[in-house]
Every structure is written in structure tokens, then in C-alpha cells.
């Protein structure tokens, strides 16, 4: 058990900050990212005894984080649907109200456009553009082929450009 705790503490040390930024870009606000990160590391701790080393630790940790993030987004979508609200509008509202966003209007528009992407496209875009993971790394984490990832990334990039240009025009 002591050994497991040491491994876990090392995972926290090595991955917590990087995973925070990934989660933050996926969910938008600091408060949500903070809550979700706690759940992710709880999951990692719970699953650690069953880690058999078949995947690299890096891939395994990222896989849990990305799956939990997609689950969170999906739950939020369901919650919004049960309230007859749009999840996109809800995420936008939260981003606008986040006290830990102090970027420019253009950066805010980028975040809003990002929140309007389908979850999986958003995930691929965030992992490639901001987390700077290679397609091969993303493929190992998500189980999606490199070809499909490249296609998703391209579509996401085009949608973001379109959304940003529309936001510019509407000003």
C-alpha cells in the first residue's frame, strides 16, 4: 500500500498541472476543472492497484482523465437537456462568469467557439493544439486511429475559424 501511495504521489506530481490545463480547456471554468480533477485523481487512485503495465503509465493516466472529462461533459449535456436548456449556452454563460478568465475579447470568443464543438472534436483539438500531443500519443490514449484524429482535428479547426469569423462579423 505504501508503494502504491508513492506511485500515486508521483503521478500527482508529474501530471496534475498538465491535466488541469487540459481539463480547464475542455470544461471552461476553473471551478468545474478543479472539481473534475479531484474526481479524476480519485479514479486514478481507485484503479491504480489494477494497473498492469500493459499500457504506458502516461497513456493510462491520460486515458482516465480524458474519459472522465467526456463523461462530465455528457452528464452536463444531459442535465441541460433535462432543464430544456442548451449545454453550449450554459458553458458559454459559465465561461463569461468565470473570475479566472482575464483574456481579451478574442480569447473569450475562442473559448466560446470551443465550447460549441462536439466533445470528441473539442478533445482532439485541445490535445493537439494546446496539450501539443502527437497524433500517435492521442491515438494511444483515445483508441482512435491517427487518420480519424487528423480528420477530426481538421474539421474542428475549420469550425473554429468559421465561428470566430462569424463572431467578428456580428460585432
Amino acid at each position, binding site marked *: 500500500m505504501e508503494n*502504491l*501511495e508513492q506511485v*500515486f*504521489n508521483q503521478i*500527482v*506530481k508529474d501530471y*496534475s*498541472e498538465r491535466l*488541469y490545463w487540459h481539463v*480547464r*480547456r475542455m470544461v471552461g471554468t*476553473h471551478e468545474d476543472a*478543479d472539481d473534475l*480533477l*479531484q474526481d479524476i*485523481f*480519485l*479514479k486514478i*487512485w*481507485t*484503479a491504480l492497484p*489494477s*494497473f498492469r503495465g500493459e499500457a504506458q503509465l502516461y497513456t*493510462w493516466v491520460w*486515458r*482516465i482523465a480524458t*474519459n*472522465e472529462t*467526456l*463523461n462530465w461533459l*455528457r*452528464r452536463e*449535456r*444531459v*442535465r441541460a*437537456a*433535462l432543464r430544456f436548456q442548451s449545454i453550449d449556452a450554459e458553458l458559454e454563460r459559465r465561461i463569461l462568469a*468565470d473570475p*479566472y*478568465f*482575464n*483574456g*481579451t475579447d*478574442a*480569447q*473569450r470568443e*475562442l*473559448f466560446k467557439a470551443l465550447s460549441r464543438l462536439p466533445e470528441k472534436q473539442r478533445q482532439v483539438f485541445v490535445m493537439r*493544439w*494546446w496539450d501539443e500531443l502527437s497524433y500517435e500519443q492521442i491515438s494511444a490514449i483515445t483508441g482512435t486511429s491517427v487518420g480519424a484524429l487528423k480528420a477530426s482535428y481538421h474539421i474542428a*479547426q475549420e469550425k*473554429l*475559424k468559421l465561428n*470566430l469569423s462569424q463572431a467578428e462579423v456580428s460585432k
Partner: protein
Amino acid sequence: MTKKTGISVPEGYFAKLQTRLQSIPGQEVKPTAVQKVAPWLAYAASLAVLAALGNFIFGRAAATEEEMGLDYISYLSQSLDPDGQIELMEMPALTEEDDICSFLIASNIPVEQLTELDYEEDY
């Protein structure tokens, strides 16, 4: 498109975060999704089986399960194993938000209890 996002964190956040996360091993572990959901699903499935039986007995077999709003619960009841447990992974019908909403409303299960049903792997 810029890589700068303008997002920030409270001062000293990451040091506090590490300390907080490293305290997780000393905390009580929450029950797994299966442990949380299984009793609810078993209860919902039991009700569905009783409703279907009642429907059969009282000669209302003409009404379809869908008309009764019990399609998902009845589907789950088919997954009931001899010990009365539900195989959660046998829920391929719950793939769209509308399906999930219907299921939640029909079964009165809080959305929190559907945590981890998707994108869950044998880590």
C-alpha cells in the same frame, strides 16, 4: 488563431492542488458506479417486470411497452441475471441524450448515478 487563452488560476493553486490530491489515499473511497446503480436498476427492473405481468394478467397486452413508457426499464429487466443484478454494460440503447433523459425520467434515477456508464474501461 492564438494559443494564448487568457485563463488563469488562483495564486499558489498548483501547490495546494498537489497537497489536496496527495491526501486522496487517506480518504474513504466512494462506491463504484456498479455498486451505486445496481440497486436502483434492480428495483426499476422489478417494477417493470411486475407492471408487465399485471398488464398480461389483466388483458392489456395490446398496449406496447413504448406506449406505457416502460421501454427502457423493460429492456433492462431483460438483462436481469439470476441474482437480480443488472449487467450495466448491456445498455447499448442508452446512446443519445434523448434516450438517457427518457430513461432517467422513467426510472427516477438521478443523473449522478449514470456516472461512468460511458467511456468506462477496465483500467
